[in-house]
């Protein structure tokens, strides 16, 4: 399957997490089309083709944005808000990645229209599964309707599609 242009924008300040995320996505032939930025301001510059990204080509938006919640400069929730407030970017699925299990973050993200929310597990196997399923889900199953008619599966709504990686520990979940 060939993918034109940029597939994934990964907004991640922790270079370890960025590398692990890239490693998790390694088999999916999208490595060459993942762009990593390390803070919220850079993410916005990238998306709006401003600042150091003023002459980014092609200038179209990515197909999926993996967004860390806690970011230097402009925080993940702010980035999410400006994406969801922009009519041109609104349809781009955003997967929130975070280490935080704080309920208020989850709620705030959903209120701002996040498509999916992943609490990054410490266990790498689980981490890999979560990243891969979320990335692949939004990348291949949830393609925009104009592009292709092969995947005629009904578009899941953001709520149903929330593939939040639940903690395996019996008393960890949800708290």
């Amino acid at each position, binding site marked *: 399957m060939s993918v034109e242009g940029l597939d994934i924008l990964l907004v991640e300040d*922790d270079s*370890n*997490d960025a590398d*692990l995320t890239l*490693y998790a996505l390694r088999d999916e032939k999208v490595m060459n089309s993942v762009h990593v930025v390390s803070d919220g301001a850079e993410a916005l510059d990238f998306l709006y083709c401003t600042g150091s990204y003023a002459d980014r080509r092609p200038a179209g938006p990515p197909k999926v944005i993996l967004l860390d919640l*806690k970011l230097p400069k402009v925080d993940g929730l702010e980035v999410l808000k400006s994406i969801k407030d922009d009519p041109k970017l609104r349809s781009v699925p955003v997967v929130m990645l*975070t*280490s*935080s*299990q*704080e309920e208020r973050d989850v709620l705030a993200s959903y209120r701002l229209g996040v498509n999916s929310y992943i609490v*990054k*597990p*410490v*266990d*790498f*196997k689980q*981490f890999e599964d979560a990243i891969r399923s979320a990335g692949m889900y939004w990348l291949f199953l949830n393609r925009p309707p104009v592009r292709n008619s092969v995947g005629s599966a009904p578009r899941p709504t953001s709520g149903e599609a929330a593939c939040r990686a639940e*903690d395996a*520990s*019996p*008393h*960890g979940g*949800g*708290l």
Partner: protein
Amino acid sequence: MRRPPGWFILVRRCLLVACDRMLCLCPVCLLAAVPMEPSFTSGDRTVIPDADTDLAPTPDGRIDDRGVRNRRAGDRAVAVPSTSGGSARRVKRTLTTAFSTLLAFQVLLGIVCLLATISVRSQVHNVVRNIAAERQANDEILVDMTNAETGVRGYLISRNQSFLAPYDTGTAALPARFATVEQHLPGDPRLRGRLAAERAEVSAWYRDYARPVIAGATPDPADGKRLFDAFRASQAAVADMLDRHREAKIDELNRTQVGTLALVAGCLVIGLVVGTRTAVVTTRRLVRPLTAVTEAVRSLAHGRLVTRPMPAGPAEVQEVGWSVNVLADQLDRVADERASAAARLQKANDELEAFSYSVSHDLRAPLRAVTGFSHILVEQHADEMSEQARELLNRVERGGQRMGALIDDLLAFAHVGRQELTKTTVHPADIARECLADLSAEQEGRHVETLVEDLPACLADPALLKLVYTNLLSNALKYSRGRDPAHIRIGSHAESGATVYFVSDNGAGFDSRYAHKLFGVFQRLHKSEQFEGTGVGLALAARIIKRHGGQIWADGKIDQGATISFTLPVAAPS
């Protein structure tokens, strides 16, 4: 007869009327004087609070609520007004006693005066009536004597026996007349002398004139006239004396009455003046300062802690005022301390929250790097490494995973302590079944027989109760891993009025000597090689049960299974 002067009669009549009125009014006046005490209300509001009615209601709540709240520090001030109410009631009682005594005294005085007046009046009245009878008898003596004289004069002229009829009638009546006069004669010797003189004159007339005429002699009529005039003079003297006597008696009566009236009026005036003065003084000196203190205490009780009563009035009341001030200072200080303690606590709580937030966020990222990269190393570079190096890297990864689990569990534990409880009626059996379904992975490939009994509903936070059952059931499944079949029973029984819920299994059990240790954080009785786990599960369950006001305990024996039991407040029937 001497009449008393007109002004005297007028004054006497006025006094009599006034006295009668006052004697009737006196009890009424005094009765009115006692309810004067409520008139200490000084116009605007009742000053002496009835401790039962005035102080009991609180501005904000029911009595039951108050009973509970009273025991808390914040509402300690509420206890104060009841004390002051008590002292007010004592003052009320004292005043009532004083006024009742005064009333009784005045009523008694009134009755005594009334009786005295009545008795004096009736005595004097008797005397006056008797004197009147004597006066009349004395007058009739004159009539009889005149008759006798008429008879004698007719006989003297006609010598006809029939003319003596008036003489006989008069003569016959005379002894009785004298007896009547003498009968009630007051013990005045002068009066007795006069009467004796009159009797002597009568005898002289009979002896020296009437009888000689009847015997046939013809004495000088001038003698007869002289003798009769002498009698008439002495008769008039007696009459005059009796009149004067009567007059004196009436005077005496009047004097007695005036004296009594003056006494009663004086007592009444004194009583009224003293009563009013007492009322005014009491109001000013006692009730008003007490009111001020009561008001201050009430204001304090309503939370206006800046209130300070101005100590005034008698020493005892001033002391109350000072004590209230001291109390208010203390209250103020306590409130301040509490406020600052609450602020400190809030700050600490906020810091803790920020801390756990950053722990959950920042501590996990490096851990993920440790586990992630060691995993990649093993996966990607296995053939470049010795067997031992691979094993060591596996250990690194497992250590990181374990630390991740510990962090998660600790955070969950901290979170349960902070979380608000939203209690509703829940059905533990449903929750237990849900948990069993969630834990189906642990049951795969095993023979587990679960028995969920009918459990009474209870009042609890559903999410947290689910966490309790999840942990108890995951333990039961985990520690019965070696059994075939494993039995897990979720039941309840009533024990001394409370419902005890329990989860029991036939698993590995534990040494009952350490039963109490199971509920501590990171306390484990089994090795992680045998049974994995962090040792937070039961601590978390215990924390939740305690936050619900229940109790939790464990029973078990090595290799004979374990039972974890807990109590919860029963749901109100609806």
